[in-house]
C-alpha cells in the first residue's frame, strides 16, 4: 500500500523533550486554524524552545508554526491591505521560507488556501505572485501541491504531476478541483483510478473518495460520455456490500452527481436502494434522507406530502446520533420544506421559524474539520445556536406527526 520509494526516518537522535515538542507543535499547528485561542500555548512553547533549537526536526516544526502564525496574523489583520508591507517590516519571516522544499511548499499552501476560502479581503495577493519553486528543475512534491493552489491557468502543465507518486497526483487533483479547475482535475483522476483500485482495493475509502471526486468533476464539466447513468453504474458496480463504507460513499456521490444533473428519478432510485438494504448507520440514514427529500422536492412534491414526510421522519429518528455538520444539512433541508407550509396549519411552526431565524447564517452543510465556520461566527455562538436546533428536533417530530395526520396517515 505504501509507495516503495519512501524512506524510513528515524528520530532517535533527538532528545525526548525535543521529540515531544516536535510532536505537540505539529498537532497544535493543525488545530490553530479552527481554534485560534491555542495561539498562546504555541507562543509559550516557542519561547521555551529557543535553547533547544539545534534539534533539526524540532527546528523545522518551529519555523513552520511561526510561519503559520504570521500568515494567520496577516489574514486576520483587517487594516492590512497588502501583505508585502508586512513582510518588509518583518524580514525575519522570510528567512525560513526558502530553506527547504517542505517549508516552501507549506508556505505556498498556506497562502494558496486563502484563494480557495474566497475571502472578501485578500492582502496576500502580492506575496502569492512572487511565490516560486525553490529549485524549479526539481520541485518537491509538497511544492507541487502548493503550485496547484497558486496556479492561474486552466492548462495545467503535465510536468506538475507526471512521474509523481500516486498520493501526490491525487492530492494535486483534489486541490485543482477545489480551485474549480474541474477539467484538469478530472483528467488526472481518470488516469489514476485503476491504480488506486489496484493498490487500495475497490472497497477502500481511498478508491471511493477518488471516484467520488472524479464523478463530481465529470458532472461539473458536463462530460456526457461519463455521466450517462449506465457508465456511472459501471463505476460503482460490484461494490454493493452495504456494510462497506467505501461503497456507501460512492453511491451517495453517484446520487449527488445525478442530483446536480437534475436527474431526480435516477437519484431517487440510487438513494432508495441504499435505504432498502437495511441500513444500520445513522449517518447514512440522515445523509440519504436529506438527499431524497431534496430530490422529491425538486420533482414538485410539496411538504407535507407522504413521500417527503416519510423520508424526513427516517432522518429525524437518527438525527441525535450524527455529526453536527450532517445535522445542520438535514435541518437546512427541513427548513426548505417547512418554508412552504402555511403557518396557520401548525402552531409549533412559528416557534421553529423564530429559532431558525436566530441561527441563520450558521448552516454550513459542507463544513469539514478545517471549515470556515469559525470565520463567520464564534464557536460559542455556534454551540448556542446548535443547541437550540437540537432541542427543536422534538418539535420537528411533532410537526411531522401532525403532517402525517393531515396527509391521511399511512
Amino acid at each position, binding site marked *: 500500500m*505504501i*509507495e516503495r520509494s*519512501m*524512506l*524510513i*526516518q528515524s*528520530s532517535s537522535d533527538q532528545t*525526548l*523533550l525535543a*521529540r*515531544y*515538542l516536535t*510532536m*505537540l507543535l*505539529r*498537532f*497544535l499547528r*493543525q*488545530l490553530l486554524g479552527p*481554534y485560534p*485561542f*491555542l495561539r498562546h*500555548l504555541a507562543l*509559550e*512553547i516557542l*519561547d*521555551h524552545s529557543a535553547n533547544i533549537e539545534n534539534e*533539526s526536526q524540532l527546528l523545522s516544526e518551529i519555523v513552520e508554526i511561526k510561519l503559520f502564525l504570521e500568515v494567520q496574523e496577516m489574514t486576520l489583520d483587517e487594516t492590512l491591505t497588502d501583505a508585502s508591507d508586512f513582510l518588509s517590516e518583518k524580514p525575519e519571516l522570510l528567512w525560513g521560507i526558502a530553506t*527547504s*522544499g*517542505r517549508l*516552501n*511548499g*507549506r508556505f505556498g*499552501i498556506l497562502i494558496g488556501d486563502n484563494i480557495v476560502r474566497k475571502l472578501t479581503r485578500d492582502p496576500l495577493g502580492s506575496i502569492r505572485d512572487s511565490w516560486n519553486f525553490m529549485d524549479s528543475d526539481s520541485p*518537491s*512534491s*509538497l*511544492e507541487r*501541491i502548493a503550485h496547484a493552489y497558486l496556479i492561474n491557468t486552466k492548462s495545467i502543465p503535465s510536468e506538475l504531476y507526471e512521474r509523481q507518486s500516486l*498520493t501526490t497526483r*491525487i*492530492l494535486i487533483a483534489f486541490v485543482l478541483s477545489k480551485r474549480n479547475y474541474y477539467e484538469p482535475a478530472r483528467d488526472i483522476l481518470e488516469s489514476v483510478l485503476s491504480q*488506486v483500485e489496484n493498490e487500495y482495493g475497490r472497497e477502500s*475509502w*481511498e478508491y471511493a*473518495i*477518488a471516484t467520488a471526486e472524479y464523478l463530481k468533476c465529470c458532472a461539473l464539466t458536463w462530460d456526457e460520455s461519463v455521466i450517462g447513468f449506465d457508465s456511472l453504474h459501471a463505476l460503482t458496480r460490484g461494490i454493493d456490500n452495504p456494510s462497506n*463504507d467505501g461503497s*456507501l460513499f460512492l453511491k451517495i456521490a453517484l446520487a449527488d452527481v445525478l442530483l446536480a444533473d437534475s436527474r431526480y428519478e435516477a437519484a431517487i432510485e440510487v438513494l432508495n436502494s441504499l435505504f432498502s438494504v437495511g441500513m*444500520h*448507520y*445513522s*449517518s*447514512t440514514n440522515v445523509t440519504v434522507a436529506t438527499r431524497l427529500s431534496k430530490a422529491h422536492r425538486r420533482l414538485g412534491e410539496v411538504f407535507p406530502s407522504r413521500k417527503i414526510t416519510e423520508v424526513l421522519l427516517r432522518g429525524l429518528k437518527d438525527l441525535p446520533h450524527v*455529526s*453536527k455538520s450532517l445535522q445542520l444539512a438535514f435541518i437546512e433541508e427541513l427548513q426548505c420544506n417547512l418554508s412552504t407550509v402555511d403557518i396557520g396549519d401548525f402552531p409549533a411552526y412559528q416557534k421553529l421559524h423564530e429559532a431558525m431565524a436566530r441561527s441563520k447564517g450558521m448552516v454550513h452543510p459542507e463544513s*469539514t*474539520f*478545517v471549515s470556515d465556520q469559525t470565520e463567520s461566527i464564534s464557536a460559542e455562538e455556534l454551540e448556542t445556536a446548535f443547541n437550540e436546533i437540537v432541542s427543536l428536533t422534538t418539535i420537528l417530530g411533532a410537526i411531522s406527526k401532525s403532517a402525517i395526520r393531515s396527509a391521511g396517515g399511512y
Partner: protein
Amino acid sequence: MLIFYRSARLQLRWNEEGELAQYDINEHFIPPCVVNLFKGNDDVLRKNKDLHTMVTRGLLKTSLVGDITYIFVSEKLRASIRTSTSFRDPIVSLVQRFGLFNIMLEALPEEYSIIVWEEVQSQLHETIELNCIPILRVMNFEDISRYVELLDGEKRLGRNISLN
C-alpha cells in the same frame, strides 16, 4: 478504534525535502499496551483474549455510530480504574494522562500526507474537540517539561509505566 489503530502504526509525514516519508511511531509517548495491541493487528477486540473476555463480560461495549466503531467502558471498569493504586500515584497518573492525550497527537494525520487526510481529520474532529482542546487550553510549558522529565527518569530506571 480508528484512533488507536492510527496511533500505533507507521505514519507518513512530509520530510525536510518536501517528500513523503515514513516515520517510526513515537513509542516513548504512546502507552506501550496500546502499541502492542494495535500494531499490525486487525480486529483486535475479537483476537485479543483479555479484551475479548472484557467484551463478553460486558465491561467493554462496542457500538457503531455513523461509520465509526466506538468502545464504551462500563461504569464498573471505570470505577476500578479510578480506585487502582497506580491511578492515585500522582507521578504515574501524570504519565498515564499524557499517554492518553498523546494517542490523539499521533492519530491525527498530517495535512496532505494521505489521500484521505481530510476525511480522517473530520472523523476525529469531535473527539479532538471534546478531549484535546480542553487539555490544551490549560496546558503550559511547565506541565510538558515535568511530564518529559518523569518519563525520561522512568525510562532510565528501565521501568515501563503501562496503562493496565
